[in-house]
C-alpha cells in the first residue's frame, strides 16, 4: 500500500504547491500593508510557476505507472497548461479585485477593514479552482472525479460573486450557482447509474467492465443512460448544448477577469473529465448487431453515445455562432463564441483516442491563448471606470490604445480560424481528427459554422481597427495596472508564436495522450490498416 501511495502523492506535488499558495494568499490578503496586498497576484503567480516547475520532476514515468491512472501521462501536459494559463489569468486580473475599496483606502477615505476585503479570498479560490482542475488528471475513481469537479466549480461561484461590484456579478453568480448545482445533480445521478452497472467506482475497473459488456451484447442500458447523464451534466462545465444557456448571462455579468477564468478553466476541467469518462467507454471494440444477427465491428463510441455527442457538437457550434451574430455586447458575444468553440472541441471527443484527444488538447491550448488574450485586452481598458461592454466602446480603439486594438483584432482572426494563427492549426487538426473518425458530416458542419462565425469575428477585428472613434470610445482609458495589458500582448503574440511551434506543441500533446490511446485500445486493433 505504501509503495502505491508514494507515487500518487508525488504526482500531487503541484496541487500541494497550489494549496499552500492558496492558504498563504488567503492569510496575506488580510494584511494591513497595502504593498503586501498588492503583492498577492504575484504570490499567486509564484505558486503557479512553482507548480509548473514541479511537474516535470514529479510526473516521471515511474510515478505515473505506479499511480494506476487511466491516462497516466495526461497530467504532465494538462497541469502545466492549466498553471501557465493561470499565470496570465492572474495577471489580467491584477488591480481588478477590490479596486474601488483599495482606491478609497489609498486616498485615506476609508480605513482598512479585514471584513470587507476580498482580494486574498479571490486568489485563494482562484488557486483552489485551478487545483481542482489539476486534480482531475489524477482521478482514478469516480469519487475523486466528483470531488475534483466540485473543487473546480465551487470556488468559481464565489469568484463570480465577489470579483466585481454591482448587481450584475451577483445575478451572474446566482444563475451560475443554481444551474450548476442542478447539473451536478444530473451527472451525480449518472455516476450512480454507471456504478450500478459496473459495480465499481475505480475507473480502470469500469473501463474493463464496460469493455466486457461491449464485447458481449454491447454496453447495457443502465450504463448507457448513466454515461449519457454524465455527458449532459458535464455539458454544463463545457458550455455545450443543452446545458449552455447560462453561459451568455454569466459571462456577461461576471467581471472580465472572472469571465476569462470561466471561459478556460472549468471548460478544460469539463473536457478532461469527459475524456476520462469516455476513455472508460472506449472508442473501439464496439459492435452493432445487424438485423441478421451478424456482429458488425464498429469503430468509435457506442452508437447512442456517439450520436448524442454528434448532436451536441453540431447544435453547440450552431447555436453558439447564431447567438453571437446578434450581440452588441462584446463579452456576451465572446460567451457565445465560447459556446461555439466547445462545439468544435466536442469533435475531438467524438474522434476519440489518438488524434481526437490530441486535437482536443491542442485546440484547448489555442483557444486558451486566444480567449485569454481577448479578455485581457478587454480587461486592460475601461470606460469611466466601468468595464468595456458594447462594440461602440471599442470603435476606433486603435487611435488611443493601438496595442489593445491590435491584440483584439489578432485574436478575432485567430478565433475565426484564419491562418497562420494558432486557431487555424487547432481547427485544422480537429478536422483531421474528425476525418480519422470518418465524421465527414461533422467536418462540413464545422466548416459552415466557421464561415458563419466570420460574420461576427470580422466585426470584432474591424471595429477597433477601422471604425472611427465614437463619442463613447473617446472616453475609454487604460486601467491603472499595466499587467492586464502585458498579459494581452504576451498572449496575443503567442497566437502567432505558437503556430510556429505548433509541431512541438503537438508532439507534447501526443506524448501526454499516447498512453491514453494505448490504454484505450488495448482491447482492440488500431483504426486503420
Amino acid at each position: 500500500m505504501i509503495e502505491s501511495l508514494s507515487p500518487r502523492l508525488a504526482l500531487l506535488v503541484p496541487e500541494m504547491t497550489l494549496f499552500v499558495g492558496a492558504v498563504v494568499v488567503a492569510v496575506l490578503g488580510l494584511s494591513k500593508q497595502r504593498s503586501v496586498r498588492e503583492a498577492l497576484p504575484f504570490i499567486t503567480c509564484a505558486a503557479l510557476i512553482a507548480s509548473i516547475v514541479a511537474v516535470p520532476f514529479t510526473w516521471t514515468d515511474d510515478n505515473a505507472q505506479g499511480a494506476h491512472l487511466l491516462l497516466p501521462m495526461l497530467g504532465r501536459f494538462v497541469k502545466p497548461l492549466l498553471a501557465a494559463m493561470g499565470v496570465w489569468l492572474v495577471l489580467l486580473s491584477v488591480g481588478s479585485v477590490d479596486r474601488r475599496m483599495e482606491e478609497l483606502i489609498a486616498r485615506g477615505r476609508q480605513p482598512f477593514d479585514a471584513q470587507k476585503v476580498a482580494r486574498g479570498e479571490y486568489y485563494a479560490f482562484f488557486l483552489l479552482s485551478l487545483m481542482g482542475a489539476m486534480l482531475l488528471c489524477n482521478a482514478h475513481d469516480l469519487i475523486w472525479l466528483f470531488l475534483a469537479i466540485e473543487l473546480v466549480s465551487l470556488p468559481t461561484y464565489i469568484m463570480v460573486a465577489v470579483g466585481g461590484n454591482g448587481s450584475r456579478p451577483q445575478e451572474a453568480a446566482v444563475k451560475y450557482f443554481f444551474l450548476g448545482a442542478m447539473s451536478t445533480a444530473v451527472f451525480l445521478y449518472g455516476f450512480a447509474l454507471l456504478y450500478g452497472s459496473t459495480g465499481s467506482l475505480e475507473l480502470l475497473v469500469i473501463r474493463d467492465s464496460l469493455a466486457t459488456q461491449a464485447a458481449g451484447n454491447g454496453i447495457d442500458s443502465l450504463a448507457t443512460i448513466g454515461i449519457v447523464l454524465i455527458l449532459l451534466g458535464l455539458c454544463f462545465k463545457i458550455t455545450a448544448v443543452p446545458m449552455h444557456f447560462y453561459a451568455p448571462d454569466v459571462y456577461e455579468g461576471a467581471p472580465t477577469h472572472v469571465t476569462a477564468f470561466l471561459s478556460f478553466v472549468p471548460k478544460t476541467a469539463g473536457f478532461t473529465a469527459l475524456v476520462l469518462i469516455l476513455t472508460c467507454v472506449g472508442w473501439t471494440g464496439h459492435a452493432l448487431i445487424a438485423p441478421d444477427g451478424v456482429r458488425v465491428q464498429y469503430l468509435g463510441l457506442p452508437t447512442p453515445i456517439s450520436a448524442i455527442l454528434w448532436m451536441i457538437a453540431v447544435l453547440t457550434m450552431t447555436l453558439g455562432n447564431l447567438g453571437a451574430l446578434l450581440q452588441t455586447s462584446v463579452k456576451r458575444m465572446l460567451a457565445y463564441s465560447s459556446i461555439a468553440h466547445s462545439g468544435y472541441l466536442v469533435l475531438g471527443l467524438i474522434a476519440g483516442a489518438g488524434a481526437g484527444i490530441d486535437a482536443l488538447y491542442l485546440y484547448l491550448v489555442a483557444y486558451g491563448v486566444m480567449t485569454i488574450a481577448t479578455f485581457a485586452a478587454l480587461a486592460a481598458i475601461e470606460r469611466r471606470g466601468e468595464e468595456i461592454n458594447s462594440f461602440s466602446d471599442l470603435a476606433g480603439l486603435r487611435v488611443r490604445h493601438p496595442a489593445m486594438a491590435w491584440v483584439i483584432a489578432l485574436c478575432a482572426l485567430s478565433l475565426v480560424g484564419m491562418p497562420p494563427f494558432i486557431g487555424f492549426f487547432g481547427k485544422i487538426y480537429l478536422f483531421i481528427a474528425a476525418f480519422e473518425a470518418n465524421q465527414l458530416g461533422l467536418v462540413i458542419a464545422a466548416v459552415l459554422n466557421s464561415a458563419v462565425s466570420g460574420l461576427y469575428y470580422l466585426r470584432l477585428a474591424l471595429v477597433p481597427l477601422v471604425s472611427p472613434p465614437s463619442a463613447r470610445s473617446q472616453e475609454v482609458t487604460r486601467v491603472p495596472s499595466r499587467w492586464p495589458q502585458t498579459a494581452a500582448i504576451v498572449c496575443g503574440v503567442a497566437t502567432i508564436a505558437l503556430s510556429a511551434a505548433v509541431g512541438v506543441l503537438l508532439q507534447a500533446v501526443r506524448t501526454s495522450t499516447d498512453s491514453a490511446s494505448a490504454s484505450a485500445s488495448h482491447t482492440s486493433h488500431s483504426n486503420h490498416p
Partner: protein
Amino acid sequence: MSEALSSAFTIAAPTQISIALAISAILFSLGLIGFLCRRNLIIMFLCTELMFQGAALAMIAFARMRMDVSGQVFVIFILTVAAAEAALALGLVVLLYRRRETLNSEAWADLGES
C-alpha cells in the same frame, strides 16, 4: 445486531433494489420539478439538495446490490459536498437578499437577451 448486520449484507432481492431505485428517481424528479417550479431561492436550493439525495440513494442501493462499500463511501462524500454547497448557497442568498430584499428568483433577470 449481528443478525441485522448480516441481513444488511445479504444480497438484496431485485425487487427491493428496484423499489430503492424508483424512490431515488422519484426523489430526483421531485427535486427537479421543485427546482423548476418554485421561485424562492432557498427552496430552489433545497430542491437541488433533494436531487443530490436522490442520486445518493441510488448509489446506496447499487452499493447494496453489489455488496460494495465504496458506493456508500461515495455517499458520505456527496453529503459533505452538499454541505459545502449549502454553506455557499446560503452565503450567496444572503448577499442577494441584502441587495434586493427579496428571495424571488425572478427579481434577477437583468441579463439576458433584450
